[in-house]
């Protein structure tokens, strides 16, 4: 008996053995070291079974050491910070880490979902398209079962407590990947003086050097990497971002990066974001994104302990973890021998090297043989054994021209199956950039071809294999990128790499035969995560899903969280074979962002909660808050809707406010209405063009109500505009349309009527506006001003006076949206609150009462005044509103003039604005939005006349009132129409849309 073999090797690796970290997986406690990933720590603890597969719930282990991991997905952390589907291979171990396996019940060891395996024969690719159709309509029930089985991890059970930042950055050269190529590129560009950002997804830069044990200039390569990083760190214009994944390549050389600021700890430090999203605009980009080893597709290649060869080397070299005690390497290429030799040197018993090639040769093979390793050529692994861990493999000789391998069969016991099918360059970002890919026959891989954006690929993502070539390509790309940015750059001197033996050609065998036809025994997995097998792919091809996109969608290959990083190429090749085409003719699937999944919180950044959208408050807002107002959102504005007093509900508060406005005096904060200052010699001409009515003859100090139309003739906005001087107007807009109106007017002035001398300024927030409305409005104002003559003759309706109100310089507009005597007092915004307070004080003895938007709505509806966006919906003309008087057709031109003349806008049966009165004694309002019909007994689908646009309880009339848009409404005065409601049919009489003071005595009073 030899001494027990400790999976954590006694020395080596880049872990900090002085800092032990405790962690929990599936409830059991383990220990690892700082520098471990969750995957390396689990492997060191001998944990093989870490997951169940998506469809068949097969036991799965850790297959890779990086972002391409298809199997080892865990639920990380807990409660509000719980995260599903996290790759154990990318989780940095921290003390107290808690993780759990997913998609299994009741436990990982005993998962009843594995019953699916029993029915696997009934569940080929796309089975669900062929069944669950009977009885009709029952998919709903099947779906419940399907949904429960599907999904993987769980969303957190509470709101994410962490914060995310966004950052925009610009640089000359962005280098993606800090392996040997990326470091060389960054060094070249940095030395030239370029502004460089170097990002890498791992905690520690170095890429492949971290685990390969390579040397440079005779010293461990990481020493060189350390020196480069030190130099880069000293350069003022170089930013190195570890733990940062470039996930998306967008137009005009913009890239999205996500920096995991605090994911390597249990929770972020106070004030620290969890992640930061970088939007980088780079003049030049160097992609040094490396390559991913490709698994071989052989029977039952999914058991825990089946692993990529280079991953095992990484675990040993970087984390000092032996992934098993006795290994078999299964390869089609030379390079995997390096991994085997490293493992052998690390103390792993290497039982055999099974090489698909009949006559492997070269220095690497010789080296293996020289160490006494058994190289079995021209054979294949035809089966694996074991349940929660692999226990052995069967091998057999390959026969030319046969789909079976049955000769020279042999079984080898092992607990680790390394496999390597060659390397797939990570061309994801290059492809996203729009660059073309070209297929390389020798390596069976797509390589970057013609670039479309300012981007270069270097190193193994560009097909380089030897370390010296990676360095050289990186340095050249970095220097060229800096050169293209105008910096004099030369590739830096590079350290010498060990000479690497020439590689013998690999043998591309996309599906490895076994002793039975593919699909008859066991499973040849291509996409491990989605449980897609070679047989599934062939089935899809057979059924006519010959486009690679059809293949993906039909079989779900490459659609998992790994997006097919280890499977896409094999799937493509199998499809090509099955359809008798070459791989380039089949094409490749589109690479789409993100490269690896990105937390939705990171994409969101800070724009949630209060920062979702700015809240706009008037200068008087604080008063409304103190008064206990209930607010409503109107666009971004928060407006007081009503002011309930103790014990009042909305109805009672509203009744009180309405009563005051009609019988005493109400006060209203109208500051939110849009205000545009229009100035210039052509101001009147301009307004003539944008409003339907005429402005040239409006007297100075006079106000006029106007409609703006769109070019198609429909109402766009309305408001009162005042002439301040010959060349100066103040336009008011609705609250919600202030910005669109300004934008539209600017568009017209800048692009259409460039000859007009007019300047526009938004002054919405410059002024506060307090409306006094009601029979006592004049009395209140009289108490507050000495220099404004309020006599009706001196200050008539629809005019403006300047003066002081409550000692504050003010413009006072005598306009009304309530039908009562009203004054709108406009002062500089900073005086708004003072004005309001003064009005409240002066008005106290007159019963002054603040009213909100709800009362305002009722007051205006009683008068039949329309609200744009309530009575109108983008399909309503001034004529439809019964306001043809506002359209001056004699003007040669105005926006919307021609549009109004179109045939459909002239129809007599268009929907028109009317009022509705209910039957006497009816106390129930019509619901707003209720539709009206002519026939009381109609049944659905029934012809409709139109709908109720506004409906209120009128305190003044002590009855419900409504406004409606109905077909041919003007001609229906006196008719009865019906609103079929869920619980009744309400009858209403069509009346003129004005319920209060139709002669307008009160507002002129």
């Amino acid at each position, binding site marked *: 008996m030899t001494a027990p073999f400790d999976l954590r090797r006694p020395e080596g690796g880049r872990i900090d053995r002085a800092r032990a970290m405790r962690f929990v997986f599936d409830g059991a406690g383990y220990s690892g070291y700082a520098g471990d990933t969750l995957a390396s720590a689990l492997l060191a603890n001998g944990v093989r079974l870490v997951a169940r597969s998506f469809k068949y719930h097969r036991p799965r282990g850790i297959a890779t050491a990086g972002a391409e991991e298809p199997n080892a997905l865990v639920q990380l952390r807990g409660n509000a910070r719980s995260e599903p589907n996290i790759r154990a291979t990318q989780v940095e171990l921290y003390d107290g880490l808690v993780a759990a396996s997913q998609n299994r019940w009741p436990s990982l060891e005993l998962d009843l979902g594995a019953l699916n395996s029993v029915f696997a024969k009934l569940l080929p690719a796309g089975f669900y398209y062929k069944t669950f159709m009977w009885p009709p309509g029952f998919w709903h029930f099947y779906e419940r079962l399907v949904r429960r089985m*599907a999904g993987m991890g769980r969303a957190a059970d*509470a709101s994410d407590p962490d914060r995310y930042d966004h950052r925009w950055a610009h640089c000359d050269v962005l280098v993606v990947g800090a392996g040997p190529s990326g470091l060389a590129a960054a060094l070249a560009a940095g030395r030239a003086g370029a502004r460089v950002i170097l990002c890498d997804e791992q905690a520690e830069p170095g890429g492949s050097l971290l685990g390969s044990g390579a040397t440079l200039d005779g010293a461990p390569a990481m020493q060189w990497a350390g020196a480069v990083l030190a130099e880069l760190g000293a350069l003022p214009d170089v930013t190195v971002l570890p733990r940062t994944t470039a996930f998306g390549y967008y137009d005009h050389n913009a890239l999205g990066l996500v920096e995991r600021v605090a994911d390597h700890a249990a929770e972020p430090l106070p004030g620290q974001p969890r992640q930061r999203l970088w939007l980088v605009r780079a003049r030049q980009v160097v992609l040094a994104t490396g390559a991913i080893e490709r698994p071989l597709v052989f029977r039952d290649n999914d058991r825990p302990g089946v692993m990529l060869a280079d991953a095992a080397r990484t675990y040993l070299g970087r984390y000092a973890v032996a992934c098993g005690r006795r290994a078999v390497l299964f390869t089609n290429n030379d390079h995997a021998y390096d991994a085997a030799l490293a493992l052998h040197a690390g103390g792993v018993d290497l039982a055999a090297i099974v090489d698909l090639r009949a006559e492997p040769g070269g220095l690497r093979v010789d080296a293996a043989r020289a160490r006494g390793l058994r190289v079995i050529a021209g054979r294949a692994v035809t089966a694996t054994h074991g349940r929660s861990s692999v226990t052995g493999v069967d091998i057999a000789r390959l026969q030319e021209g046969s789909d079976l391998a049955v000769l020279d069969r042999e079984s080898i016991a092992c607990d680790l199956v390394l496999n390597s099918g060659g390397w797939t360059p990570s061309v994801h970002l290059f492809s996203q950039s*729009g660059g073309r890919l070209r297929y390389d026959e020798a390596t069976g891989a797509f390589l970057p071809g013609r670039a479309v954006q300012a981007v270069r690929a270097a190193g193994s993502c560009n097909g380089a294999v030897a370390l010296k070539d990676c360095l050289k390509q990186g340095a050249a790309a970095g220097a060229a990128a800096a050169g293209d940015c105008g910096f004099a750059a030369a590739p830096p001197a590079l350290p010498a790499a060990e000479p690497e033996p020439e590689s013998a050609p690999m043998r591309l065998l996309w599906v490895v035969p076994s002793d039975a036809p593919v699909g008859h025994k066991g499973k040849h997995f291509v996409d491990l995560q989605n449980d897609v097998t070679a047989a599934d792919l062939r089935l899809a091809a057979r*059924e006519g899903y010959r486009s690679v996109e059809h293949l993906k969608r039909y079989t779900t290959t490459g659609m998992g969280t790994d997006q097919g990083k280890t499977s896409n190429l094999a799937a493509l090749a199998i499809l090509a074979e099955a359809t008798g085409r070459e791989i380039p003719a089949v094409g490749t699937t589109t690479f789409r962002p993100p490269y690896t*999944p990105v937390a939705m919180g990171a994409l969101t950044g800070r724009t949630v909660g209060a920062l*979702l959208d700015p809240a706009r408050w008037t200068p008087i807002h604080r008063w409304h808050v103190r008064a206990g107002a209930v607010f409503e959102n109107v666009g971004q504005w928060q407006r007081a809707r009503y002011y309930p007093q103790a014990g009042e509900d909305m109805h009672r508060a509203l009744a009180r406010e309405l009563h005051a406005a009609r019988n005493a005096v109400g006060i209203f904060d109208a500051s939110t209405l849009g205000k545009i200052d229009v100035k210039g010699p052509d101001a009147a001409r301009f307004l003539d063009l944008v409003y339907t009515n005429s402005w040239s003859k409006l007297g100075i100090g006079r106000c006029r109500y106007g409609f703006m139309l769109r070019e198609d003739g429909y109402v766009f906005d309305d408001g009162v505009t005042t002439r301040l001087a010959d060349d100066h107007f103040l336009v008011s807009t609705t609250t*919600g349309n202030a910005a669109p109106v300004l934008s539209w007017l600017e568009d017209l002035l800048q692009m259409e009527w460039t000859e007009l001398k007019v300047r526009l300024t938004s002054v919405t927030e410059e002024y506060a506006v307090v409306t006094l409305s009601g029979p006592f409005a004049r009395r209140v104002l009289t108490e507050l001003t000495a220099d404004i003559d309020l006599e009706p003759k001196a200050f008539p309706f629809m005019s403006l006076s300047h003066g002081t109100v409550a000692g504050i310089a003010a413009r006072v507009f005598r306009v009304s949206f309530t039908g009562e005597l009203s004054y709108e007092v406009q002062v500089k915004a900073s005086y708004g609150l003072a004005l309001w307070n003064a009005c409240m004080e002066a008005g106290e003895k007159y019963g002054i009462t603040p009213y909100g938007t709800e009362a305002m709505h009722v007051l205006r509806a009683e008068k039949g005044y329309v609200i744009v*966006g309530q009575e109108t919906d983008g399909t309503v003309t001034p004529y439809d509103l019964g306001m043809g008087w506002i359209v001056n057709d004699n003007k040669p031109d105005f926006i919307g003039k021609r549009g109004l003349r179109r045939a459909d806008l002239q129809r007599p049966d268009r929907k028109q604005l009317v009022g509705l009165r209910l039957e006497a004694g009816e106390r129930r309002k019509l619901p707003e939005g209720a*539709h009206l019909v002519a026939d009381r007994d109609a049944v659905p689908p029934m012809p409709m006349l139109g709908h109720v646009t506004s409906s209120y309880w009128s305190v003044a009339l002590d009855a419900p009132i409504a406004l409606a848009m109905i077909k041919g409404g003007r001609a229906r005065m006196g008719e009865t129409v019906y609103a079929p409601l869920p619980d009744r049919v309400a009858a209403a009489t069509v009346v003129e849309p004005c319920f209060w003071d139709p002669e307008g005595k009160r507002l002129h009073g």
Partner: protein
Amino acid sequence: MKRYSIFSLARNALSHHEDWPQAWRSPEPKPAYDVIIVGGGGHGLATAYYLAKEHGISNVAVLEKGWLGGGNTGRNTTVIRSNYLWDESAHLYEKSLQLYEGLSQDLNFNIMLSQRGVVNLAHSEHDLRELSRRVHALRLNGIDSEVLSLDEVRRLIPILDCSPAARYPVLGASVQWRGGIARHDAVAWGFARAADARGVDIIQNCEVTGILRDGGRVTGVETTRGAIRAPKVGCVVAGHASVLAAMAGLSLPIESHPLQALVSEPIKPVLHTVVMSSAVHAYISQSDKGELVMGAGIDTWNSYAQRGSLPVVAHTVGAVCELFPIFGRVRMMRSWAGIVDICPDASPIISRTPVEGLYFNCGWGTGGFKATPGSGWVFAYTIARDEPHPLNAPFALERFSTGALIDEHGAAAVAH
């Protein structure tokens, strides 16, 4: 057509699924057909299917420049509903929804129609009013739709943030229970298989490069695989309608934009209805596979590139996280874009054209998937009879001259 069923699955299991027939043929194009449909997306395939099934016209070719279902059919967020504001739209989309309800059986292909309900959230008094208007209209049109109180919303979607302290608190909602989602690819494949079985030739990798005319009438199309003749040509090429129209000397009231969508990693079921919020700009459902499926707004500039900008996606994700704060740590797995043809009134064009025998079905904007069977059904009628069905008569090109637009933008922003 060999029928699909649990029994055929079992039977084929015995032969290791090695005897399944092709779902559809890949024939060489014939020199001439009775009707050519340009565009092998869902709408085009549905048109061909209904031409054969409803009108007995099976000498039909569907020409697809790439792979069938590869345009917006395979890129949308799979939502199906008929709760449109205007009668014209409501009737058209309702026809489509009714066809969807029997489609799996009709096509013998499970399109996985999941009528889990479509919920539209209201965040302001204005939203509530508009939502009420829509629900009342739908009800009188005989289309299911109802208003949900805040409490009902809370019970239906427990993970939705219904806090009154939210920036735009949820005030209520409407729901169409018959709305839901379906498997988009399956709709294309199902129509393709069923159309093929009725004799329709589906020809992939065949790009139309010209529209052949003789005087004022169409005689066929020029393609990358040669000229193909037909007295009637129907164009259903979402994303490229203007390009096809230009080949016939026509211009359309259409602009093409990128429309992006994204999915998260699959998670266990947490969201059981489709949720839409026009105020917060979120649009989300959860697929049967467990992915959260989210639709973004359009990128505002014209493009034919199936590529959009990251901030547009980020904005949508932000809106989703605002409504569903537990999704902050769920991760976006894949994002993509389609090209949508937008009409000025956000309603489609299903119409004859000034060229005799040439028909266009386009301009579905962001909402074409839900219309797939209905669109194909009325378009087949229009082509077969050379006149529109009453359901699509309002959607003719002429409306842009007369002004009788069907403005489905939703009512203008609140203004008071």
